[in-house]
């Protein structure tokens, strides 16, 4: 089977490559070097952020380069990965779960300034309802907010898109982490930990 070649522009370079290739593979296929912003190549590490415009479309979309298969006339630009967010916190700073709400607003004060512009939701390559997650978190609904971010790969595209520097993906992760930190207390695990503490569970290695 000879594969059909399609013409695309990647980082300003005109490239012809088989249609089955991703943006990352097509760039390599044309002989160009790229090692930064390449990770798992399976859409879960969030490294290979690209902006994509399809032929005759006005809209520019944010996507992952390894998950973007090239189409005739596509224009693609790789985005550098942004510096880490300035939103710093330690889970251990919260004495108990009553403190979570105030710690959240101390760490992410910008969430109350959300303009409801929808930029974060639009930029998400995983179709997460990002803006709704931010709204829920600001209201203290951490469980519900965190559930929305199950598929988040921390590509930070929503952070790039946000005019208020909210860092919505880190908001989502905060919500998920506090749920585990304060509320995940599985009886089967705790029982076993106690048995181990009492020295009831040694391993024989002599056989």
């Amino acid at each position, binding site marked *: 089977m000879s594969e059909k070649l399609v013409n695309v522009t990647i980082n300003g370079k005109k490239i012809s490559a088989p249609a089955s290739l991703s943006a990352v593979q097509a760039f390599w296929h044309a002989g160009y070097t790229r090692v*930064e912003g390449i990770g*798992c190549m399976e859409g879960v*590490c969030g490294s290979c952020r690209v902006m994509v415009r399809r032929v005759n479309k006005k809209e520019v979309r944010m996507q992952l380069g390894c998950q973007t*298969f090239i189409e005739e006339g596509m224009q693609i630009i790789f985005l550098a990965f942004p510096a880490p967010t300035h939103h710093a916190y330690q889970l251990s700073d919260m004495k108990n779960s009553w403190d979570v709400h105030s710690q959240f607003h101390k760490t992410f004060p910008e969430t109350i300034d959300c303009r409801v512009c929808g930029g974060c939701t639009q930029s998400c390559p995983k179709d997460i309802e990002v803006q709704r997650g931010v709204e829920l978190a600001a209201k203290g609904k951490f469980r519900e907010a965190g559930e929305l971010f199950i*598929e988040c790969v*921390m590509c930070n595209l929503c952070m790039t898109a946000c005019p208020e520097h909210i860092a919505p993906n880190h908001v989502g*992760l905060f919500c998920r982490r506090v749920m585990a930190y304060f509320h995940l207390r599985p*009886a*089967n695990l705790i029982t*076993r930990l106690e048995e181990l503490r009492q020295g009831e569970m040694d391993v024989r290695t002599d056989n």
Partner: protein
Amino acid sequence: MSKGIPYDEALKRYQHDKEHTLPEMNEILRDYHPDYYPDSLVKLQVGINKGDLCHRQLAEMLQADARIDEADLAGTSITETNVLVIGGGGAGSAAALTAARNGASVILATKLRLGDSNTVMAEGGIQASIESGDTPQAHYDDTLKAGHNKANKKLVARMVMDAPDVIRWLIQEGMQFDQNEFGDLLTRRPGGASANRIVYYRDYTGLEMMRVLRESVSNSNIEVWDHSPVVELLSSETGHCAGAVIYSVEERTYKMIKAQAVILATGGIGRMHINGFPTTNHFGATGDGLILAYRLGAKLRDLDSFQYHPTGVAYPSHLAGSLITEGVRSAGVQLLNALGERFVDELKPRDYISAAILRECAEGRGVVVDDQTVGVWLDTPNMELREPGLMKQRFPKLFHLAKRGNLDPTKKPILVYPALHYQNGGVVIDENGHSTIPGLYCVGEVSGGIHGRNRIMGNALLEIISFGRRAGLQAAQNLSARGHKKSGIEHLTKLRRELSRANMPMDVKSPMLFPACANFELE
């Protein structure tokens, strides 16, 4: 008298608790597992493992010339730290966090970006004996048996005893796990195990783990150097590991990091495409750590043993090698050949199932597409018929993958073929991840001895945290008041002498750093 073994002698050989492997399993491995391909192995001619069997492709890298010499280090910047962690996956993160929390200054240098690793891609889950019918002893026995009794028993014992506390530690970092309606952690059974022992989060266990660990590292005082592959380790005048030389991809220059302890957590070798197989591994899995440690004189083991995951995608070809988690088989999905017949117990260890698939394909019972792709069916529609909707809820990543390939797993079976997944061997370590070189720790896939000759599902995510924490603690607790007097790359002189004495081609350079497809050249 009839021919045989006398009663007393036979009684001496008898062991009441011995695990019996049926001959067919050995035969099928010997005849079809890629580790036994004729001409794939050579004997090493250089270094401490001289005379040991090693895969041809790995041997070429282990016996290649270094990329730098003294001249490259003239005028390079020097940074000092207590502990240098090399690698930004789960093992490196756990080690760095533990070292930093125990008072050490830590630099974490990684070739790609913090989190870009095989950890983030892990789907199936992590092993810990937490169910009431299960014990650490059973976990230990299963691990040894699946590894063909070749694992280091002390390492396995440590790991299985650590396991429940590893889960607790991860929860305290903010990691979620799937639970039942009573709040207990859900478990499923790994192939080759005697009990339900895998805890998981959907088929995103690694993603959930890595995003939490990355956030922990970012919120600590650990200094993270992204895009900084190590090209050589530094040695001291006393033969200690004393730091590393990194190449800054962003600044296109070499830099030196001097450290009192180095924790190597560089992962595996998938992108070497051993025996030409597609791989489930990430872009940076080029085996650099093995080469770096070997040059310093660290002992390696099981260099002829690799894991081929039974269910890599075979078709469509642009998805070749993409992983379908073993969790799918744990949940009851079966494998069928082109005749529509089952040919293997899907919950046997991975090496056996991969060999069985390769046998079906070699003997003409594989499904052939386009005259070049061959595979067997992963019977997902049957599972959908038995438990409608369950797959989509438990395995969202599988459905994303299928969508990219224009497949509907609820209607049509998926064509699968083994893919290179894991390096079973690696650097010899002790119970704290310490290698045979003072000051050099190795944790995660780069280390060897925990899995013997075949790893059981869920022990990789366990190992990286268990030994990552152990090495991080040990490194932080054993800092000497003063650092090393001298540190450099003098050990390369010995390497080059040995290479030329053994007539090795000096035009081959290692470590590989990046796969050839990315067209990367050092300045």
